[in-house]
C-alpha cells in the first residue's frame, strides 16, 4: 500500500479500488475456508467489501489493509451465522500444553497401530477439510486464520477480542482433533477394499 493510501478520515473511491479491492483474491480464499458452501462464500465476499466501504473511515492509518479486510470478512461471517441461528457454544479447551501432550500420545497410538506409514500414501486434503468443517466454530476459525492464512496469535487475539492464551489453547485443541481425524482416515482406508484399478501389490489377501 502506498503512503498516500488509506490514511485519511475518508478513503477516496480510487484509493479503495486500488488498495482494498486488491485484497480480493485473499478474501475469496478466506471466505471459502470459512463458509460452508460456495454460494455463502460469494455472499461473504460481497458482504466483506460492502462492510469495508461503509466502514472505510474506521481504518487506522498505518494498519495492514489485508488484515483489516480479513477482520471485516470474519465479522461478516459471524453475522451471517448469527442470522442463520447456527452459532455454536462450546467449551474453551483445557491447558494448551496438555493438548500438545495428548497430540504426542495420539501419535504414539497411531504408530503402534501401523497407521502412520499408511498416511503417507493417502490424499489428506479431503480428510482435513471434512474434519475442519466438523470442528466447533471457535476452534475452526483459529485454525483457518493461523494455519491456513498465517495470522499470528496476537492478530487473532486482537481480532476475536480474546486473550492470547485462549487463541493458543483453541489452536492446539483444533490441531489435536485434526490429527485424530487424519489417523481415523488412515484406519478407515485400511478397512476399505482396494480399488479394482489399483496396481497389484503382490501381497497375500
Amino acid at each position, binding site marked *: 500500500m502506498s503512503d498516500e493510501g488509506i490514511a485519511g478520515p475518508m478513503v477516496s*473511491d*480510487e484509493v*479503495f*479500488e486500488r488498495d482494498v*479491492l486488491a485484497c*480480493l*483474491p485473499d478474501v*475469496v*480464499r478466506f471466505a*471459502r*475456508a470459512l463458509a460452508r458452501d460456495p454460494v455463502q462464500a*460469494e455472499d461473504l*465476499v*460481497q458482504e466483506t*467489501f*460492502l462492510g469495508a*466501504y*461503509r466502514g472505510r473511515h474506521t481504518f487506522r492509518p498505518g494498519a495492514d489493509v489485508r488484515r483489516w479486510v480479513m477482520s471485516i470478512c470474519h465479522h461478516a461471517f459471524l453475522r451471517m451465522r448469527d442470522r442463520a441461528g447456527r452459532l455454536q457454544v462450546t467449551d474453551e479447551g483445557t491447558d*494448551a*500444553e*496438555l*493438548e*500438545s*501432550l495428548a*497430540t*504426542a500420545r495420539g*501419535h*504414539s497410538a*497411531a*504408530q503402534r497401530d501401523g497407521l*502412520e506409514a499408511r*498416511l503417507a500414501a493417502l490424499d*489428506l*486434503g479431503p480428510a*482435513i*477439510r471434512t474434519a*475442519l468443517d466438523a470442528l466447533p466454530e471457535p476452534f475452526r476459525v483459529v*485454525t*483457518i486464520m493461523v*494455519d*491456513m*492464512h498465517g495470522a499470528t*496469535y496476537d492478530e487473532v487475539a486482537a481480532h476475536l477480542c480474546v486473550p492470547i492464551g485462549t487463541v*493458543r489453547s483453541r*489452536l*492446539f485443541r483444533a*490441531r489435536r482433533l*485434526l*490429527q485424530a481425524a*487424519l489417523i481415523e482416515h488412515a484406519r478407515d482406508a485400511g478397512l476399505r477394499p482396494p480399488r479394482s484399478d489399483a496396481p497389484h501389490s503382490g501381497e497375500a489377501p
Partner: protein
Amino acid sequence: MIDDFDEPRDIDCLTAVRRLWDHLDGTLDAPAADEVERHLRTCEACSSHYAFARLVLEAIADAAPARPAAQELDALRTRVLDALAVEGFRARR
C-alpha cells in the same frame, strides 16, 4: 557467576512434548527452544512426534482453498463493484 545459567538444561520427554506446538510455532523463548532442539537431537521418539506434527501442519496448510482462477475473480469483482455502486462507489472499471 552466570555460567550456570548459560548452560542449556537437559529436559525430559514429557517437557519436550508439552512444548511441541509452541516450538513448532516459534513462540518459545530462546533458552526453552534450545532445550527442545538439544533433546530432539538425541531422542528418536520425540523427534518422530515433532515430525508427525509438522506433517499435520503441512496437511492443514495444503487444505486451504486454492487461489481462485482469473475468471472467477473477474466475476466476483464485477459482483462486488455492482454492489458497491449501489452505495455510491464509482470505480474506474
